[in-house]
């Protein structure tokens, strides 16, 4: 089985790829439009530098070689959502090429990362076809893989990994991603076009794998064709088009000059799964737990890195997990540090988090019971030592030190609590 993907991702720029129109979503259709993104005669495209910079960053984290000189092509096809009836895209001079994404079982090769413009949105309502050009000209990157994926499970892992990598580039592709899926179990390639969202993508793949398997089991061959995924029925359907190789009549887009990308400073970004692995090896985190924690959470990653090596990894993970439950992982590193001090078996409360955020001491009020409990436990285990301590202040200090160290309590607080508990009398 061979699966290859073409994944389209919208880039988080303020303005469109070839004009100054805003990319922001608006209630009103056709509000963020101008002669260029409407394809009016006389208009010209002007390349958005920031879009190229982000695309270069993405190509970089996907392990691609980066082209210093890029150019654009016109991909010609006729469709109402395409204002010029050609899409400005890239072909042999794309921003990135020859990359790879590692999943547990293997490396998935990336053939190409290219920049292109999004068409308009088509709405079909009450028998009418409506066009909204707000989306027309929004910058996209298309990520094209080699057909290296060989199971639904690998597809799942790849999409998880890709989503995580792109998340750290400022894009969450969960629902918005659009992909074309090439699946062949037999000799011929079947393309499932225009699947939206990761869940649908995996459902479509599963359906298509089963469908082709059934055909082969019956001793036949799946035919080369283009199919669409029906989200409601959860099946793929043949597009019933005459099968020929797609003819896009590519030529250079000579309204845009060759563009030198070498001056664009990229976000070095991270590959979260690689970070999880490295942090685990270095500081003893559970790799899988850490990976899940940071793969789609930049703040969790920030907090973990700030404390790694200085606190017990289990405490770090526990506090971050609890903060996430409160939706509070964006707290400052100082506040995080204060919360780490309360120890791993403590449940955080809203009050503790608020105090930590305000920089107030959280040990006294909230932690008292916990410390009392730990002291009692320690006394149970070390009865003889407590006997000695009644007469010897050195032994008293030793006990306070031991408890504080063991549970990462504040020694002053422990001392006060023991005094109040009258344990040395």
């Amino acid at each position, binding site marked *: 089985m061979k699966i290859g993907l073409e994944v389209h991702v919208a880039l988080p720029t303020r303005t469109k790829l070839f004009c100054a129109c805003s990319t922001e979503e608006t209630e009103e259709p056709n509000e963020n439009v101008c002669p260029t993104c409407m*394809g*009016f*005669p*006389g208009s010209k*495209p*002007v390349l958005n530098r920031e879009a190229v910079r982000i695309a270069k960053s993405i190509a970089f984290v996907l392990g691609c070689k980066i082209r210093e000189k890029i150019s654009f092509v016109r991909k010609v096809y006729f469709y*109402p959502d395409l204002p010029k*009836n050609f899409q400005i895209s890239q072909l042999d001079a794309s921003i990135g090429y020859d990359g790879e994404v590692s999943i547990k079982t293997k490396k998935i090769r990336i053939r190409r990362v290219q920049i292109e413009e999004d068409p308009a949105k088509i709405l079909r309502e009450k028998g009418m076809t409506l066009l909204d050009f707000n989306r027309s000209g929004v910058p996209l990157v298309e990520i094209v893989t080699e057909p290296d994926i060989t199971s639904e499970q690998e597809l799942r892992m790849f999409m998880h990994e890709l989503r995580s990598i792109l998340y750290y580039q400022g894009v969450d592709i969960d629902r918005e991603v659009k992909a074309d899926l090439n699946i062949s179990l037999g000799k011929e390639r079947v393309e499932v076009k225009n699947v939206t969202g990761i869940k649908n993508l995996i459902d479509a793949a599963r359906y298509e794998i089963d469908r082709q398997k059934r055909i082969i089991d019956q001793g036949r061959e799946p035919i080369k064709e283009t199919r669409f995924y029906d989200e409601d029925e959860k099946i793929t359907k043949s597009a019933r088009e005459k099968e020929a190789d797609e003819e896009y009549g590519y*030529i250079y887009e000579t*309204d845009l000059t060759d563009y030198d990308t070498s001056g664009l400073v990229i976000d070095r970004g991270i590959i979260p799964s690689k970070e999880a692995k490295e942090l685990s090896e270095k500081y003893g985190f559970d790799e899988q737990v850490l990976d899940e924690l940071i793969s789609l959470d930049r703040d969790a990653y920030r907090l973990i890195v700030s404390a790694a090596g200085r606190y017990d990894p289990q405490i770090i993970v526990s506090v971050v997990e609890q903060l996430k439950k409160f939706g509070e992982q964006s707290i400052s590193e100082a506040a995080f540090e204060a919360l780490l001090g309360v120890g791993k078996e403590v449940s955080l409360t809203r009050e503790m988090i608020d105090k930590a955020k305000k920089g107030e001491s959280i040990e006294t009020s909230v932690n008292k019971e916990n410390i009392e409990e730990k002291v009692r436990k320690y006394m149970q285990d070390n009865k003889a030592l407590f006997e000695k301590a009644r007469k010897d202040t050195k032994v008293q200090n030793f006990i306070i030190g031991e408890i504080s160290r063991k549970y990462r309590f504040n020694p002053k607080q422990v001392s006060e609590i023991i005094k109040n508990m009258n344990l040395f009398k």
Partner: protein
Amino acid sequence: MEEEGYIADFNGIEKPGDYFHRLRDEIQNYNEKFHAFNFIPEKLEEGFPFSVKDNICVKGVETTASSRILSGYLPPFDATVVRRVKEKGFSFIGKTNMDEFGFGSFGINTDISARNPFDEDRVAGGSSSGAAVATALIKYHIAIAESTGGSISNPASFCGVVGFTPTYGAVSRYGLIDYANSLDKIGLMARSVKDIEFVFDIMKGKDEHDSTSVDRKIENKKSRKITVIDEMISGVDEDIRKSFDSLLGKLEAQGYKISHTSLKEIGISGPVYYIISMAEASTNLAKFSGFKYGLKVEDFSLDYNTFFTNARDAFGEEAKRRIILGTFVRAASVRARYYQKALSLRALLIRKMREILKDSYILSPTMPIKAPKIKDVEKLTPVQNYMLDILTIPPNLCGFPHISFPYDYIDGLPIGAQVITDHFNDKALFSFVEDWENNFTYKFKYNLGEI
């Protein structure tokens, strides 16, 4: 011949209060006969008159590129050249007739062909036919025109005016309805090169709306050498050849050193030009689909393919021919053989011509024939038609600046010569033609707006 150009003259003369009103009426009257304009505004502003080829956008003014498919298109913006010229106080007097989308050499691919002011039975040339006719009719006027493969030189030559095509990239194309993006250049026509220089200085320079426009310094590296390329004079009509030889004699007498050379690559420039220009044109024309602007197909019950096909029936025959040929040369199976090959041959021709241009001008007749009769060109096959562009194509294909200037009159018809120089040396052309104008007086049959 005026010493300082028509713009300086015009500004120095006291004009009657109703001058612009009368000018408008006069232009309107003569347009009935010569069809230079597709559109003339109701009222003219004060200022030196300028016209705009109908494939260049003027805000709120119908801009059709002489195509039915664009009828009713009111651009929501001014082309950069139009904006810059307006800002300097020039007065817009109309949109000039042309071959549909610039596809043609005689100005006949339009609803009503413009007529040659020297002989109404003859063509004005093309594709900027109306621009040349307007320049030959109106005394105080400058025409903003556009050339892809010779659309300025050709009609300038046939109508006896000066036509300047700048270096590719020197003038912004923002607001131009594209024919072939890597070849289109917005230029000027006038009765004197001095006016052209003045307005070129206003139009030129980097424009943030056109990525291919540049801010390079425009040089004036004069040369006393002229090179004549054998392949550019071998096919011209006998009378033109003779007249051109006498031009060379005059220039030699003025101190230019004339040399002859062979450049066999000139022979491939025609096919290379038509492959590239048609490939690009066929993509540019893809956008015209009959529902957002221009011609609107009202029947929305049709399926998209039928709807679209109906809309595109509005293209003229030559436009359809170029869409079909251009689409063919882009096809995956032949792209390497035609389109890609044409691109590398263009690069080769640029190198070869630059070797000559580094220390001399290239001079040739502008057209191999005098302005032909309209009834005769209608009989030409498309290929015969294309072959007549053979002298204007080389500089256009390579983006070299060039000027066609009138240098003789045969049987009462003007003929032009074309001088070419290296990229971004446009000002040397102005010096060259200014020298010529100091020794030669252009003839005009009409002087509309004379004061």
